[in-house]
């Protein structure tokens, strides 16, 4: 092997690897470092404070609330968006124009900026002239200030999140349904198995990889929620929609508590790392066994 042959692969991967090291790997290490310091962006020196930021975080009632909100939001997002996607997928998984058209329509929000989605839903949820209060009037629900009411603000964000992701989740499940071999159903039909039994014994187990995939990526995505919060509620009212990424953003850029924000960032790294590890295991399995 000539010198060039040995060097060539490294030359080919180096542009990508440089970017990955500079903007992904190094920043994580820098974040760890910052989490042990106290710094307000303006002063020239960062003071080393040990684990003080972490202690302060874990003692802070606001941070407890932020974690509680994030976990609640994630739980609601995951259970509702997958819980609705499963029956929708079973229903829409048919030939024919109308079914295909519906698939196309419910997927549309997935390719639209969350900025647009947040704005249009703010308008729909407007307390005075909003469409939602008008629709709710028919069902007999009195008008509400959806986003300004501490009781409904978080669930309103969940509604917007579900509206955005349902189409994607449904289409992932439809892809999963279509990969189930048809002969299994034919054999089951020969045994006179009921539809319900078919669903339990064939569809659900065969669909479980897709469901698990959705479970993991929805958990990660919900934990990272920021856009809707920043545009629609700013974390309010009274912190009821303040969640981890918004909390980090606010502490860093509004309160200039870089060390404190970094410590919260490190906790986020640890949680997402755990979830991603599961995701990666899943990904690796799929790649090997197919």
């Amino acid at each position, binding site marked *: 092997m000539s010198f060039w042959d040995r060097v060539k692969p490294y030359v080919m*991967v180096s*542009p*990508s690897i440089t970017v990955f090291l500079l903007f992904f790997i*190094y920043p994580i290490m820098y974040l760890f470092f910052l989490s042990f310091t106290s710094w307000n962006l303006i002063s020239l020196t960062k003071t080393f404070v040990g684990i003080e930021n972490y202690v302060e975080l874990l003692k802070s009632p606001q941070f407890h609330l932020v974690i509680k909100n994030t976990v609640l939001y994630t739980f609601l997002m995951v259970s509702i968006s997958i819980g609705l996607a499963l029956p929708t997928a079973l229903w829409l998984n048919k030939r024919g124009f*109308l079914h295909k058209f*519906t698939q*196309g329509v*419910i997927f549309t929000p997935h390719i639209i900026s969350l900025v647009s989605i947040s704005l249009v839903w703010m308008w729909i949820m407007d307390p005075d002239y909003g469409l939602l209060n008008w629709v709710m009037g028919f069902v007999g629900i009195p008008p509400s200030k959806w986003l300004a009411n501490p009781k409904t603000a978080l669930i309103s964000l969940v509604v917007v999140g579900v509206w955005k992701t349902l189409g994607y989740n449904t289409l992932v499940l439809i892809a999963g349904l279509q990969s189930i071999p048809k002969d299994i159903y034919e054999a089951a039909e*020969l045994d006179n198995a009921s539809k319900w039994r078919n669903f339990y014994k064939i569809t659900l187990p065969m669909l479980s990889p897709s469901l698990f995939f959705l479970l993991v990526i929805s958990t990660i995505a919900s934990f990272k929620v920021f856009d809707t919060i920043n*545009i629609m509620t700013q974390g309010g009212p009274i912190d009821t929609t303040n969640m981890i990424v918004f909390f980090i953003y606010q502490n860093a850029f509004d309160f200039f508590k870089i060390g404190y924000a970094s410590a919260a960032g490190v906790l986020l790294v640890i949680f997402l790392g755990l979830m991603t590890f599961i995701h990666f295991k899943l990904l690796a399995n799929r790649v090997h066994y197919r």
Partner: protein
Amino acid sequence: MEARERVQQSLRIRKKEGRIENSKNLEILKKGAKGLEISGLIILILIFGFPFLWMISTSLKSFSEIMIFPPKWIPDKLMFENYIRAWNSGPFLRYFFNSVLISISILILQFATMIPTAYAFARYEFKLKKLLFAITLLALMIPEQITFLPVYLQMSSWNLLRTYAPLILPFAASGFGVFLLRQTFMQVPDEIIEAARLDNASEWKIMWKIMMPMARPVLITFALFSFISQWNSYFWPLVMTNTQSLRTLPIGVAMLKDAEALTRWDTVMAGNMILIAPMLVIYFFAQKQIIKAFVYSGIK
């Protein structure tokens, strides 16, 4: 093969018998079910499609028509002025230009970096391959919601905050793209490459004449995925820009809401239309490709 045919035949017979038995009742039931299903589909289409129509309708209303309850569906006079007002309320031409420039530059850089990287990972053996590939996977997993703070500080210390660099450079390579393309390159059968080598084809020729045509669908998929994600991106440009001249369309549109104390939803929705119209046009023409890009690239 034969067993399968027999199974299908017996199924067909059984279905026929069933049909004769209660064909009349079934017909009525089926019609009812069909009607119910179609109304269900229409409700679903309304829930997901109507907010877009509502956006268009609002964007063409006069300010007084917005403050009517119950809401008015179609404005009396189409107020196209709203679009002009939205466009003139900030440097929208600049926002639009920035959005296009950033999305396209990122796409070009990603292609330039990922093709050789994926090729090397798929086709060569080298000492640090495992480690470097692990770094690629890590980059694919680490979200921007974690890196934004340290990258912002890095960019600030390099005095790059008032340039396009923080908006483009961190995305100049894509872990996801490398991963996707490597898979594709690995699937090209060795026999084809061996045959080309026997014909004295150079490595360069093999890459461009054999590998690239085979990777075309994946490259299109990735291009759509990358462009749409960048165009819609809000969080990263929000963090990385504090001068108007660098801001992108999503930031500009989001700022429309805060411009006045009383939100002018007619203007905001007009701005909103400017932001989503290009996506809706692309989606209209390449719906199948886009769904494939987002759905299948996630699972496969």
